[in-house]
């Protein structure tokens, strides 16, 4: 009986009063979600832990989780990810049309919808690959690539290799 009471007391003491749950990707520490969510469950490659700290004031995507604490990403990475999130296809379309006369061929306008589709999906890897394909097929020139890169650079999107990755987007 005494043992039972001791066990129950230990359980009572061990129960966390603050039940903040955090789900993250095991491979890279990217945080999936965080909150007072008692039923939070992990999918393959994810883990759910209870942590003693609050949700940060900044967006969760600015942090990774190292198993114990939140680690803020470098400001360079945060700025690039923010630029991808805030990329406006409307602004890009306008910049493209404004520069239309500077391209080597007026027919590049037929590629606009494809380029914008990649950008809408925030798939800047796919966009870069497509531009390289157009250049390889001589649909556009090297000078046209410079013009296109400048359009995306206008919204802080760098099309240089290794400076971008798959962005966020989509819906439920």
């Amino acid at each position: 009986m005494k043992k039972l009471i001791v066990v129950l007391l230990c359980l009572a003491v061990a129960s966390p009063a603050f039940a903040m749950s955090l789900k993250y990707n095991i491979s890279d520490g990217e945080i999936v979600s965080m909150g007072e969510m008692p039923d939070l469950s992990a999918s393959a490659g994810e883990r759910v832990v209870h942590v003693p700290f609050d949700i940060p004031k900044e967006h969760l995507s600015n942090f990774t989780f190292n198993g114990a604490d939140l680690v803020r990403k470098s400001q360079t990475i945060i700025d690039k990810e923010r630029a991808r999130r805030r990329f406006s296809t409307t602004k890009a379309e306008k910049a493209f049309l404004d520069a239309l006369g500077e391209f080597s061929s007026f027919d590049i306008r037929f590629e606009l919808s494809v380029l914008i589709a990649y950008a809408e999906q925030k798939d800047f890897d796919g966009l870069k690959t497509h531009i390289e394909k157009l250049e390889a097929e001589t649909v556009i020139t090297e000078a046209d690539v410079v013009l296109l890169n400048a359009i995306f650079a206008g919204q802080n999107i760098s099309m240089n290799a290794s400076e971008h990755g798959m962005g966020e987007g989509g819906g439920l």
Partner: protein
Amino acid sequence: MKRILTILVVMAMIFVSPAFGAWDSALPAGTSDPSDIDTEVGANNTALQSLLDDLAGWADLQVDRTNATTVAVTADQLVLRGSSDLAARFETVSESIAITTDGASGLDTGAEQASKWYYVWIIAKDDGTINGLLSLSATAPTMPANYNDKALVSAVYNDSSSNFVDFLQSSHHYEYNTWRSMASGVAAAWESVDTANFVPSELSNVAFGSLIGLGGNIQVTNNNSVAAHADTVAPNKIIVAISDTGGAYWRLHLLTADTLYWSGWASANLYCGGFEITKLS
């Protein structure tokens, strides 16, 4: 026919049964039979208590956090209830209550605990001395000696660092100065959110807040049996589809105790702005 109708209406007005015994200022009379006096006084007390129960608890009540350990309560009028159920009315109430103080104007009993709701009481002695009191109890605070009357007016959340969360309560509207994040990130289907640390269930079951994100869909509901898919129209859910930065306001009855449900895409945030005090008058 008109006369019959008139008579019926008059009779209905005369014979409407009152919900409680009416106060009779003529009783007990000097001519009352002594054996009836207890009954007559008792009937009048019942009527009086019923009126007191219906009295508004407060007028122009304001409660706010002064600092990490102190709250302040002001009211033009406040009605306190005694242990014998009689009421005492106070005017121009202004009390400061610190959790670092023991007893009246402080904590009723025990040591300060983190991550807990502390209920804010106003207490008074029979001689009219009035003070505030903080207690973990929303029903039976440990009263300091000689204090008999009390009124529950608010609550304050002592966070994980043992700091009071900043708020302002005006009458029944309780709002956090900085809306508190309840959940963030990605929730692909309805995920339950425990509201216990954001809405004290002893005071309220109506919460409000916002959904904010940087892209995709975010939604909240008080009924997780409705369709979670963002493309499905369903009742009881507030949804916002965001292409850049955007959000929506929500106000929901907590149909399941201490629980809301949300789902959201990347960089989604569910904030609690506060709650409406629905369980005090």
